[in-house]
């Protein structure tokens, strides 16, 4: 009965219980058929999630069920830490075990690019697009997760999620100017996307290749990938809780990402 002495926390718990604050799961189910990013064949690949049952109330363990699991740090809904990219290799506290815990809770702004992505698999989010968005919706606040709602998560389970063609993957993402704007002008915490990578599918061919990873992590910012249910979030006002596993020296990890958002009405 000894509730938190902080009234804000107590109020939060009460509002969660009453439904005034919704808890929304932004995480995809982690299974072996959840697709992972594909790199050119000469490089090491991202292992999909694998699960091997050790025992299931049977001869190998009569009263218990448990599994051995294996995956890459960037399998399924996952968190990218600054150390993941070469530009971020010297960022202090750049690995998942070293990120201060307070960085796991931040507010989020949701930018809707669903129509644009539906019309163009390779839609590029430019600085111009973001500035136009601000004109319509208001400025992107500082120290926020910037979440790109592309409705790409609705493609999970189909070929068009990875959308691989002969020349590689085709999915939306930002260009370098957009990233510099978000990082330097808007001081974002990080970029969250519904696709397998913060960068566009064809981003390795940009003039400034792979700008999301390069600029985010080079500036100590984070990435969240394979998110879902972004269409349930308000444009402003939700709080993201994203806690990667505390892997020693880890570059990222699969995780459970939830949003606390005010009730829709």
């Amino acid at each position, binding site marked *: 009965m000894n509730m938190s002495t902080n009234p804000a926390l107590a109020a939060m718990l009460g509002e969660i219980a009453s439904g005034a604050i919704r808890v929304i799961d932004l995480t995809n189910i982690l*299974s*072996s*058929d959840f*697709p*992972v990013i594909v790199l050119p064949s000469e490089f*090491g690949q991202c292992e999909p999630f*694998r699960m091997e049952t050790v025992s299931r109330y049977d001869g190998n363990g009569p009263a218990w069920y448990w599994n051995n699991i294996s995956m890459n740090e960037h399998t399924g809904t996952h968190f990218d830490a600054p150390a993941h990219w070469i530009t971020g290799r010297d960022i202090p506290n750049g690995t998942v075990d070293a990120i201060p815990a307070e960085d796991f809770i931040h507010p989020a702004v949701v930018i809707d690019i669903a129509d644009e992505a539906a019309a163009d698999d390779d839609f590029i989010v430019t600085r111009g697009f973001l500035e136009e968005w601000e004109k319509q919706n208001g400025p992107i606040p500082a120290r926020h997760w910037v979440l790109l709602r592309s409705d790409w998560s609705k493609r999970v389970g189909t*070929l068009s999620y*990875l959308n*691989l063609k002969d020349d590689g993957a085709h999915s939306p993402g930002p260009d370098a100017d957009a990233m510099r704007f978000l990082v330097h002008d808007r001081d974002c915490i990080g970029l969250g996307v519904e696709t397998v990578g913060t960068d566009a599918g064809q981003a390795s061919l940009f003039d400034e290749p792979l700008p999301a990873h390069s600029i985010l992590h080079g500036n100590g910012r984070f990435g969240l990938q394979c998110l879902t249910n972004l269409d349930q979030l308000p444009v402003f006002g939700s709080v993201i809780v994203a806690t990667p596993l505390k892997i020693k020296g880890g570059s990222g990890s699969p995780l459970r990402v939830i949003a606390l958002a005010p009730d829709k009405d």
Partner: protein
Amino acid sequence: MTERSPREKRDPLARKKARHVSPATRSRAMHAMSARAAQGRFVLQVCTDCDKATYPPRDACPYCWGELVWQDRPNGAEILCETVIRTSTDLYFRDHLPWRMGKVALDAGPVALVHLHQDLGVNDRAAVRLMLDRGGNAALFALPPTGEIDMTDPQLREFTVPVVGKTVLVSDASSAIGLAVVKALHDAGAGLIVAGMLPPERLTDQKHPILNLDGVQPVPLDIVDQVSLSEALSKVGGPLDIVINTARHVRGGGVSEQANIVEQRRAFDVSAIGFTRLAQACAPMLAGRSHGAFVDLISSDALAGATDNAAFAAAEAARLSLLQSFRHEMRAAGVRVLSVFTGPVEDEHHQPVPPPKVAPARLAAAIVDALHQGREQSCVGDVASDAMARWLSDPMLYAREKNL
């Protein structure tokens, strides 16, 4: 061959027909004959002193007590007498009565009891082939010496693996080898070819001409993943007759130099553990079939290591070891486990390797031929044939010279 043979239909309520294998106990000398029959050779024991050939297999020359060695011999013969067996206490042969057999005088010298092809009779000339019966033991089969042999002869069918109308799973059909195998199976008249496609799927795969052939059903399949395997097999709606394991992970690298542990682990995951997963998942399905077979494509690097492809060679060696055990396990069910050895293949994984290399189409043809002949071990291409010959004659020397 464009006529699709219909897949087998039968009454689902009728109890499934039990498959038997005749008693498989043989002497050690007979096993030595079977080991050579597995390679497709016709051999007899020949005395090192008096040069006479002898049969049945034994442990001393009956003419002079000299030492006997196995040698390739001409396989012509004349049929002396015959019978049609109409009753038997053996469950396997009871299922296949009446059974015609006879006695031949081999050109090589001895007389032998043989299975008789339907087109042969007393006083005919014959070509005697050494083939493996359903229990995996060598037996002599007298065939017409010239002209095209009628492969539908019901007794001969017991020694081979028919492809027409059968359901075949190709474990990795997304590679150049796999696609060639799918095409070859299609051309040979397979009823349904389940083409395992390694994830991730690409949009362009859906339009691939081979994968769109009549009777080809692509399914996602990565044999290192238990769930993927179970789901792929669940899509085989009916019986599964033949599994062709084309899965492999070819990456260069050494042991203490240029080793890549991630690639080595994947190689073992595919060649060894994946093999076990695939065998375990498919064995019960194959065991119930009248002519179940598992064909494994394996590198001749499995024999003695390979300096530039150490991880791949090691994984293939593990595969070879598992094959021996698997083959023995499947004997009781009459399921043939065939090995097709190959050297470097003319594909994207062997770009730095100089010729001779085997074209995927040739490899695919060899696989189909191995099935049609019921041949347990085949070597495709000069590299594999050379490797096998050297390894058999002097394994320690071969291991040394292969890794210089």
